[in-house]
């Protein structure tokens, strides 16, 4: 029989698949949706840069057949800022985890959003630090069990979409790895949007998180998403909570405002004009 070739093969870095992610992990679905969106938009992949931080999903930049950079823990957005400002023709996407982006990298996230730098951020939220064996993180639900919350988590988690909206992101959405169609459309929208755009993707982590929280398989976690998800487009992100009973999904923010890059270029042109005129 002939060799099977996946339609998205050309978007994947040669020799890198199969990836390192566990059975039932949703990171691969996020990768799948990301290249799906690029394919739909017929984008010039030469102009796409994928940046990731540290953690399971951090490996993603190695799997996309694009210019990619795998930064230090938490610094993906800061690196991406440098790239985007230095070459505005590039579409710079940061794909990283909840711990990377919102614990060690939290400061960079809010400031990039505040500046409205034209970078796209996809956060794979698996509710814990998977790569290091399942410690609690900034998104771990209250009372959840992890290796460092052996008596249940006593910290309140971040509401990422609320945080993003409050920090000034121009596009904010949340989906799960089961809502692939909506996720792909959402990523397409994000890629075409100008400014700091953010998508949170709830992703199953059965091996590390699920097994400790009564969801031993990816299917169980995906069925939880199916059961609990409630799509509330354009609703108040402050109310978009995540509980065992209800995961509020949807597009929460979609606004226009001048990007940092635009204002910067604009300023430079003005200054240069003045200079030409000679002070």
């Amino acid at each position, binding site marked *: 029989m002939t060799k099977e070739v996946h339609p998205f093969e050309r978007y994947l870095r040669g020799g890198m698949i199969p990836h390192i992610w566990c059975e039932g992990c949703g990171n691969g679905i996020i990768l799948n949706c990301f290249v799906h969106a690029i394919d739909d938009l017929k984008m010039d992949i030469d102009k796409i840069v994928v940046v990731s931080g540290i953690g399971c999903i951090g490996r993603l930049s*190695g799997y996309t057949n694009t*210019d990619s*950079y795998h930064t230090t823990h938490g610094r993906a957005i800061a690196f991406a*800022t*440098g*790239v985007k400002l230095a*070459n505005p023709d590039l579409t710079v996407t940061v794909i990283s985890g909840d711990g990377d982006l919102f614990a060690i990298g939290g400061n960079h996230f809010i*400031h990039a959003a505040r500046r409205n730098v034209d970078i796209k951020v996809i956060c794979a939220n698996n509710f814990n630090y998977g790569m290091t064996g399942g410690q609690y993180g900034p998104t771990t639900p209250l009372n959840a069990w992890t290796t460092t919350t052996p008596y249940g988590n006593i910290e309140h988690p971040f509401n990422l979409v609320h945080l993003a909206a409050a920090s000034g992101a121009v596009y904010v959405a949340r989906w799960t790895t089961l809502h692939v169609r909506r996720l792909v459309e959402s990523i397409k929208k994000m890629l075409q949007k100008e400014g700091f755009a953010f998508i949170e993707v709830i992703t199953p982590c059965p091996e590390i998180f699920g097994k400790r929280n009564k969801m031993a398989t990816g299917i169980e976690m995906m069925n939880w998403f199916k059961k609990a998800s409630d799509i509330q487009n354009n609703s108040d992100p402050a109310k978009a909570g995540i509980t065992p009973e209800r995961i509020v999904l949807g597009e929460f923010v979609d606004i226009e405002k001048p990007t940092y890059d635009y204002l910067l270029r604009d300023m430079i042109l003005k200054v240069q004009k003045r200079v030409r005129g000679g002070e």
Partner: protein
Amino acid sequence: MAQKDRTVLTGKHFWEGDVACAEGAIAAGCRFFAGYPITPATEVAERMAQRLPEVGGIYVQMEDEISSMAAVIGASYAGVKSMTATSGPGFSLMQENIGLAVMTETPCVIVDVMRGGPSTGQPTKPAQQDVMQAKWGSHGDYEIIALAPNSVQEMFDLTIEAFNLSEIYRIPVIVLGDEIVGHMYERVTIPSKEAIKIVNRKMPQISPEKYAPFKPDKDLIPPMAIFGQGYHFYATGLTHDEAGRPRTDSIEAQKKLVQRLCDKIRKNVDKIVKLEKIMLEDADVAVVSYGITSRAALSAVRKARQERIKAGLLRLVTVWPFPDKYVAEVAEQVKALVVPEMNYGQLVREVERAAKETPVKFLPKLGEEPHKPIEILDALRRAHK
């Protein structure tokens, strides 16, 4: 009307060192600055904020030094010469990503205008306390290049030099200034644009399919593709092979990579190192010095000569890689070496190591002000006996 070229402000100027440094960067082709305000380096940022837009460059003030360093690396990968400027506390924060820059072989320049530490220490006082941090500050084995200007003119000249070296060797280069050279006003002479030698990184000459981002040429330095040109390459802070693929479990890959990262500097020390040998021909005592201290050392040596003491000065313009060989030569020739440093003993350890049996007299200086020539002269007198 013809555009006024503002990239090189040819002519004579009366500037402080931080300004000269910024001008040097622009002259060298730097078009991206990411930083965070800190005394006594703030003036570099301020000058860049004002000047970069004039030449179409980007100034961005980040939320901290960690992100500043990350952004500098990002800009460099996007093909723009980039730098940051900071001082002790900020320099500490940058170490993480300096390590990343070393690992991903990123051309970029870090200006460290040294001040008194540890910790917040004495923001407005000069010091030479980051010399070792410049070499060992980030974790793991690596080589790095650090230059130590001792005048406002050199803040200009050596910043250009720093960029050239970083482009040649794909490595972060540190300009180790201090509060005095940073804030001191002196006359600076800027040559014509043509007279300034600029080096740019080596680009791949092969097709993207064949390109392996970390496959070195004979000189051990891999040609550097930049984002957006269709090379679709991958760079990671993880140990990687020539194709850039992570090799976290292969000892071979680790050895191969780390060795090359060090060797590309070690094997090129002669090309990299810059020194000043003053009155060393017949010297039997010598001062080994760098940075601002070397100016006090020079006048001390002159006075010593008036007292018929055969004194000489070996000034290290390049402190890293450390020029062992040259220090050793001098050490063999003299009976003793005098090493003044504005710290409690850092580079002197390297000198001692290179000097072998030759006695080394260390003159520490902590805080407030630099060495007085007379202090160094006394040391020479004693060493001469």
